[in-house]
């Protein structure tokens, strides 16, 4: 089975978010970048499927050269090879077009992504890729097993419950917890990752359909009002009469 896993490169979950003085772009200063946490679920599940059934796992990132540290990390975790489309990921449509172009060239059996990237919180790329390729998209999937060589069984979260689906390959699925237990690269993985192939290709087309004009931060809370534990019940009347949320 040939599996493609798309990973985005995002600020670590503990990062403080700042923007440049003019508010026009994200300030990368002092920010640690990681593989998007949701994509780690996709990556580990892909590696598990490969270990069970054979095949290859290719990781793909649309990004500039500074994302290579995390691409190597994905290789160290167990992907076989990697592709980087050498471009700033302008928006979801642009990224989706790059991924779809690579997928058309290599015809993968399965394309796995994360539910959303935690920088722009779009939840868009998987749907766009599926539509561009004309294949189903299962969003968000928290369980994925192969029934046989051509059909997978997935569980997908819906509001108020879950759905069980059986879908023929190829398709796109976007992963969420608890699809797999993300792995930490071991020493051997880190050593072999250095020599695994990482191909850099140039982007195709323009694609972008949106322009990010400016960024801002939410207003700070005015401060917490403390209530004495002895009179805890008073909270309920404050919530009703002062905050007006009950």
């Amino acid at each position, binding site marked *: 089975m040939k599996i493609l896993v798309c990973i985005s490169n995002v600020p670590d979950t503990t990062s403080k978010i700042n923007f440049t003085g003019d508010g026009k772009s994200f300030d990368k200063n002092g920010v640690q970048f990681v593989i998007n946490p949701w994509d780690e679920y996709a990556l580990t599940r892909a590696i598990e499927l490969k270990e069970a059934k054979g095949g290859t796992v290719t990781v793909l990132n649309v990004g500039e050269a500074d994302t290579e540290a995390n691409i190597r990390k994905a290789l160290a975790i167990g992907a076989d090879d990697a592709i980087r489309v050498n471009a700033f990921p302008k928006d979801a449509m642009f990224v989706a077009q790059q991924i779809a172009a690579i997928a058309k060239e290599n015809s993968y059996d399965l394309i796995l992504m994360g539910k959303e990237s935690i920088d722009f919180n779009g939840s*868009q790329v998987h749907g766009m890729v599926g539509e561009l390729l004309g294949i189903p*998209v299962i969003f968000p999937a928290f369980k994925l097993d192969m029934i046989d060589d051509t059909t997978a069984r997935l569980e997908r979260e819906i509001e108020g419950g879950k759905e069980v689906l059986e879908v023929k390959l190829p398709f796109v699925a976007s992963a969420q917890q608890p699809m797999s237990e993300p792995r930490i690269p071991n020493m051997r993985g880190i050593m072999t990752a250095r020599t695994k192939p990482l191909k850099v290709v140039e982007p195709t087309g323009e694609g*972008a*359909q949106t322009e990010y004009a400016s*960024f801002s931060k939410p207003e700070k*809370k005015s401060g917490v009002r403390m209530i004495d534990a002895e009179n805890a019940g008073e909270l309920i009347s404050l919530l009703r009469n002062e905050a007006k*949320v009950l």
Partner: protein
Amino acid sequence: MSVLVLVEGFNGEIKKSSLEAASYGSQVANALGTEATAIAIGEVQESALAALGAQGITKVLFDDDARLHNFVAEAYLKVIAQAASQESAKVIIFSNTNIGAALGSRLAVRLNGSLATNVTALPVISGDSFTVRRGVFSGKAFADVNLTGDVKIVAVKKNSIDISSDAGGTASVEKFSVGLSDADFAFAPKETVMQETDGGVLLPEAEIVVSGGRGLKGPENWHLVEDLAKALGAATACSKPVSDQDWRPHHEHVGQTGITISPNLYIAIGISGAIQHLAGVNSSKVIVVINKDPEAPFFKAADYGIVGDAFEIVPKLIEAARAL
């Protein structure tokens, strides 16, 4: 030219998030000098639809094909794309539900449009530019995005738009059918399993959420969370370690790697307030924190706080809530 709004149903009723989308859509229509039409699909009763007039919707297209009660993206897309073309819709509004996000991205490709998800405010429209504000970096920031495509698709974040109650009268309801074939349902789910919801409150739609963390020590103590939730008509949630240890089901886990919620009131009991947890709840309107550690980081993000032992405090809250 018009504005088209997708209306989703649940148990025969219109989802609250769809009322917000309808309210959003009619305000955009007003700004553009046009009208807002709704397309209603799924499990909603025809009699409930005329009430969309109060949201400023003038016409509701209703596809009552029972096969649409389950979400099947291919079939939904066909219906919505057809409605968009019939109404010459230039702006399409969804709620940012799993369904809205799944459809928006596919529709953007199909209609060659621009999409913004997680939108928190009405657009600023001036001449050709159509700019919306959306939440980014897990609620730590906002971005103003200009949708440059011909068709603009907006998925509105839950609980960020007030539902109007006096925007109009009743809407006319028209049957709408595009003649779906079995092939459109090829990817229908084999099975749908609904969770038990106490009092029918779905976590993503809930206006009040009571949430528990590791401070509650074990699943045997969850009656505290559940009883308070029941007394307040709230849904229940939890932190990640709680669902990781199977004290609670995964779908209750909120945060960076769980679901994001924005209720009017979020009550956190025995949760430290790690930045990854805050990412899922920081756009709640009012946050209450109950923690025995006065230094718990969650107090910095709270509106109301009580320092003390949850096992003593929560029973008092339950009592006061029941007396409301």
